[in-house]
């Protein structure tokens, strides 16, 4: 697995890298040097999300030790916003004439999938889900079905970027907190809205354990606009033996009650939240899954990321990840130690 995120998750030691924080209400990705991954002539043409997505995908393949990659499945809520915005602007600016097609092509939601397939010669199944807080999770469901159908492995990931223009657009409908908020205090200052984020996260999934396996997914559920009763029922299904609850809490007072429901269902079980690391975005759940797998694999938690953390169990065998996107798409994933 691999992740480019606002934190130092892509290279180096996550246990010693300092916590990146902001009071601009936007956590921006820490981008690596792409040259070791992408040939210079391709790199020049590619926009930011394409570089982040492709590089993370390639790094996760390296990390997995898998030689031949099978199906490629991704999720993205918004695709390459930079390209979409550029093409809209150029249509206006050049009055629909002499347009460069590159931003149009790259704005297509499956453009990163196509690039990955090209680079790794991946001729198997290829699919892209574009459904807000269900984008990554549908990619995950598709991947689990592919493994059940006999695929040797899948490359499964998510990608999202935030542009200045889109940040402004979403601010007009209350996505972000109205006043600058220190990301380190995200959970202490409940108010309408959250802080924005972005990221690219990829996993290589296999149907059976390999020496490089980090964690195993043993439970999974998506709920669309659930009632309180339906959510409680969904969460209760995964109640057994959870050592750690990882939530997508984001400081948004309008939807905090869903997470509070989880609090009451898991009393006394240690809980951590990750949106002060990743920010809020359509595919933040993928970052949450990366973090859960990281914790299960290393049996450690990057202490500098969680100064609020008091005590943890000696061993963490089972983690429940519960996330939702602005109260609409709710997802629960149970991960266990291999």
């Amino acid at each position, binding site marked *: 697995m691999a992740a480019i995120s606002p934190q130092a998750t892509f290279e180096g030691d996550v246990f010693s890298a300092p916590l990146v924080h902001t009071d601009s209400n936007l956590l921006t990705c820490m981008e690596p040097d792409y040259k070791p991954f992408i040939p210079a002539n391709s790199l020049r043409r590619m926009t930011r999300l394409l570089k982040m997505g492709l590089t993370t995908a390639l790094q996760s393949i390296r990390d997995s030790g898998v030689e031949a990659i099978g199906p*490629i499945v991704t999720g993205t*809520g*918004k*695709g390459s916003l930079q390209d979409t915005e550029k*093409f*809209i602007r150029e*249509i*206006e600016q050049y*009055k*629909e*004439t002499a*347009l*460069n*097609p590159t931003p*149009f*092509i790259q704005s*297509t*939601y*499956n*453009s990163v*999938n*196509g*690039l990955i*397939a*090209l680079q*790794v*010669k*991946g*001729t*198997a*199944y*290829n*699919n*892209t*889900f*574009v*459904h*807000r807080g*269900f*984008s990554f999770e*549908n990619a995950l469901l*598709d991947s689990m*079905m592919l493994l*059940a*159908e006999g695929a040797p492995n899948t490359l499964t990931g998510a990608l999202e970027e935030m542009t200045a*223009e889109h940040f*402004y*657009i*979403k601010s*007009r*409908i209350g996505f972000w907190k109205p006043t600058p908020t220190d990301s380190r205090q995200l959970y202490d200052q409940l108010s309408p809205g959250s802080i924005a984020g972005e990221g690219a996260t990829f996993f290589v999934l296999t149907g059976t354990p390999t020496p490089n396996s980090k964690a195993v997914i043993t439970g999974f559920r*998506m709920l*669309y*606009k659930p009632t309180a009763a339906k959510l409680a029922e969904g969460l209760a299904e995964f109640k057994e033996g959870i050592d750690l609850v990882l939530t997508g809490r984001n400081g948004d007072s309008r939807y905090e009650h869903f997470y509070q429901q989880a609090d009451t269902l898991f009393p006394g079980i240690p809980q951590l939240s990750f949106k002060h690391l990743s920010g809020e975005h359509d595919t933040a759940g993928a970052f949450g899954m990366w973090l859960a797998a990281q914790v299960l694999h290393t049996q450690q938690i990057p202490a500098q990321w969680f100064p609020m953390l008091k005590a943890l169990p000696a061993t963490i065998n089972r983690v429940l990840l519960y996330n939702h996107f602005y109260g*609409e798409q709710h997802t629960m994933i149970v991960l266990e130690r291999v």
Partner: protein
Amino acid sequence: MAERVFITGMGMITAIGDNVAENLEQLRQQRSGLGYTSYIDTIYKQVLPVAEVKHSNDALFSLAGITSHEGYTRTTLLGLTAMREALQQAGITDVQTAPTGFINASTVGGMCDTEKVYFDIVDPAKSGTFLQYIDTLDCADCTQRIADTVGFSEHIATISTACSSSANALMFGARMIRQGFLPRMVCGGTEALTRFTLNGFNSLKNVDKQFCRPFDQQRTGLNLGEGAAYLVLESESFARANNSRILAEFTGYCNANEAFHPTSPSPDGDGAYEAMKAALAMSGRTLEDVDYINVHGTATLNNDVSEGKALERLFGNNVPLFSSTKPFTGHTLAAAGAIEAIYAVLAIQQGLIFPNLNFKEKMEELNISPVTELMEGVSVNNVISNSFGFGGNNASLVISKYEG
């Protein structure tokens, strides 16, 4: 063994009709939906033909059966219109009566409406009701509006793989049924014409100024279209217990990537060949069993060579009857796979082979040419439907006559 998957309902709206019956009638009459746009604000209004649905958004509200005018995009309205018919045809008055999933497909979501107000949206000095369109730009907006209007609350998803999007939606739904997640799925796609996509394809020099001519030596590109189509898929056990009317069986499918080029297919049609071959193998049908192929046939220079070569490679000297229905509907991008899947069912039900309009001259690269006149009274038992897209995405579906 995984369950068989049946098609038990269909609904659609395209430039040639507001429902399945109207589409069938226009196909029979060989009447194209191509013309010029009334609703897109573009300098190409009188230059580039499109296959536009002949209704304003106001008229679509009543077709879609809703009164509200706030934040519903043309994409949503087209989708809702097709969805209502699909459910009605399947005899579903309330989707809550059985666990039912919804897999939608879209390439640019609500761009059709947001592009008209985008520069107001990004201008802090402007404010107004247009702000209701802010969150309609993405692809999930139309899916959720449709889901919420008709009451889907089980699994929902939106797929975007360019021109193969709704073929992949059908495949994903069928796989969820076969793996036992849900007994019934409604799958398809919706697409509205936009200045964004028209300029996109035009910038790629892929749009014909004449009515498109698939598989013709003189073809110069595609014409865009708009529309929506949904198919109700049911597991065999559910369909039997529910006493559903079975329209056809969804027997095979394959999604394969070419890994050749971001926007062009390989000259020999490797992806198309793989997709058709694997879909057919899954269906348990032989090459000889295929009676008709509804080809992707966009009429771009590259697609038709590549797809034609793939047909010749797979079927040798016995390429089945084939045609592209894009000259009727235009290329409806994310909706195309589902629209053409319905045409495949109609071909089977009615014993028809639809003509490939505007074809005159055989391509020099190929030994084959499409069907050019409506054929009636044909025994059609198995149809392959192809959808190929940007990013090397190839999808083939096999739809078969229901034989108990």
